[in-house]
């Protein structure tokens, strides 16, 4: 693949993990943002299902946002679109201030590896790999050995004595810690978690959320999609998503969506208004034409 050489060069640069897309002026901008994003799925009968309806959403580096809402409200779709697993039908998507709305499959894969960490409800560790290998798995095919980094991360999460254990030998909380370590192996700017505490008891869930707090303090934008009220307690901001319509998607009130149409880079509008409900209502009404 032609992108390989550039990829290698980037990986050799020790600073690249901090600034995956390498654009200093927007470094203090949102870690990840959606602008007027619509996602429609074709459905069997009738019109398409609208999973996301004119969603404006942004998370600052170091911010922990919980997205709540009933089942089928589009939370998973939101996470998939944020995580470059799925493309929006309309609207823009930004990662570290860079427009990543239209990327090729290979580019998206690389962007996921470099800038996004995933944590799943079911942990999704590879059962044949040890804890260290699971953590290093995203970089397994890259030059250089990430085992030391993986071991450091695991030690940070209190799993220093479980490095060579396979997932079957770990408890649920330990597995989720391994999964978080895996998500952090490339020092991402965004951590996306899908029901991270869904399969854990309350105590373990709290421990995992405490880890998220640590992660966010390191400047990572954390987004957790959840049903768990516990997560809301730990979150800096709780965003509601119902029937694809989002309330409170932008931090600190956020700018109005008049901004969306023209400027793709949300550079200056960040602290413009304090008007939280209004901003949240706007996209909802704008998208309410279905």
């Amino acid at each position, binding site marked *: 693949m032609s992108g390989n050489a550039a990829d290698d060069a980037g990986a050799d640069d020790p600073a690249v993990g901090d600034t995956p897309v390498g654009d200093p002026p927007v470094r203090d901008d949102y870690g990840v943002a959606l602008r007027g994003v619509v996602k429609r799925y074709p459905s069997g009968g009738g019109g398409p299902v609208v999973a996301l309806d004119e969603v404006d959403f942004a998370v600052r580096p170091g911010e922990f946002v919980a997205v709540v809402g009933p089942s089928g409200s589009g939370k998973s779709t939101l996470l998939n679109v944020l995580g470059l697993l799925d493309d929006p039908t309309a609207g823009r998507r930004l990662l570290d201030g860079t427009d990543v709305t239209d990327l090729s499959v*290979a580019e998206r894969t690389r962007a*996921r590896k470099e800038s996004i960490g995933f944590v*799943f409800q*079911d942990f*999704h560790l*590879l*059962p*044949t790999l040890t804890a260290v290998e699971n953590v290093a798995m995203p970089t397994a*095919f890259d030059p250089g050995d990430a085992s030391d980094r993986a071991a450091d991360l695991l030690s940070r999460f209190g799993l220093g004595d479980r490095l060579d254990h396979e997932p079957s030998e770990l408890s649920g909380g330990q597995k989720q810690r391994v999964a978080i370590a895996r998500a952090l192996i490339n020092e991402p700017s965004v951590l996306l978690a899908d029901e991270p505490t869904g399969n854990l008891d309350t105590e373990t869930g709290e421990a995992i959320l405490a880890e998220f707090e640590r992660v966010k303090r390191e400047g990572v934008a954390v987004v957790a999609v959840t049903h768990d009220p516990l997560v809301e307690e730990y979150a800096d901001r709780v965003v509601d998503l119902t029937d694809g319509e989002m309330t409170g998607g932008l931090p600190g009130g956020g700018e109005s969506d008049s901004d969306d149409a023209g400027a793709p880079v949300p550079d200056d509008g960040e602290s413009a208004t304090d008007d939280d409900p209004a901003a949240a209502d706007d996209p909802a009404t704008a998208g309410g034409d279905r």
Partner: protein
Amino acid sequence: MSDRSADGLAGWLRGWGPAVSMASRNLRRNRVRTALAVLGVCIGVLAVAALGIFGNVLALGADDAIGDIGTQVVVSPNADAGVESLSNADVASIRRAVDGAAGGGAAVVPLYSDSATVARQGDQTFATVYGVEEPALAYEAAEGRLPDRHRQGAILGAGIAADLGAGAGDTVEIAGSQVRVIAVLVESQTFSPVAPDDAVYLPESAFSADGYAQALVVSDSGEAARVAADAIREEVNAREERVELFELAALVDEINEFFGLLSTFLLGLGAISLVVAGVSILNVMLMSTVERRQEIGVMRAVGVARRDVLRVLLAEAGLIGAVGAAAGTLLTVLLVAGLVVAAEEVDVALALDPTNGYYLLLALVFGVGVGLVSGAYPAWKAANERPVEALRN
């Protein structure tokens, strides 16, 4: 530019290390299933290699047995055209034709022919008697020495010498006259109308005929014999069909063709079992990628490239193929060795013939190839699935 492509190549090669490591662990997860797939390839490779070698040994053995059957051309006068014997002029033109032919070098040995009673110490037998001037060109002596110019004495074929119990230095009675035996020929490996085993060779001076009955054209190889025969047809039979040619090269060709067909047929039989093995790998890989759909989705989600997922899965199929092929090849070697030890009919030299190695290599390559080809579709399918679909519960 070349630097970059060298980097690309190094990167490409580097990716196979972790791929093979992950693949081998995945294969160990379901050992029974993996072992059965390996067994399938092993049997397929065994079938291809063993049947291939079997056909090859048959062909080699046949080649050995019919020997240089194809290296002789017998030129006879064409009685239908009223030619009763070959004149000196005919022999000269045969020589010209043969010398002019590509490769050349074939020896022309004209023969007088008659028959006579041959006797020694009460044993007697009826034999063809040939008159020959240069026996050394066409024959080899087992006993005594063949003269460059045959002036006196008799040369006995191996069969007749055994019948009469005569050796070089003995005296035999041929058509009433006592003749000293100067040599006995080696037993003929050649099927030829001029059968030397039951013949007696005398100097040309013993004959009073006015023409030769036959001429032998002796070449080094079947190919040279064919060229010589064609040259003789063109040269000697240019105006009228003066001579008839009896050449065995064509027959040898047909025999070789038959054995070639037999080998192909046997290989085909083996290939069927290898195809079956391929289907079993396909099945195993499809099952395994469906079972591991989420895992593969996770790998893709956390940033493992499609190419690398493809590599892991291809490595799994390739490993099944390679291990099965190696085991099958080893089994074939043991089988052939066992056959050589157990059955005396199987010549060690034939079994060790280097061409058999070709069949081993062929089977080995096919085994690995079948693994890769069968694994390609499931691997491609799994690697190209959208992670968002694969992750869906």
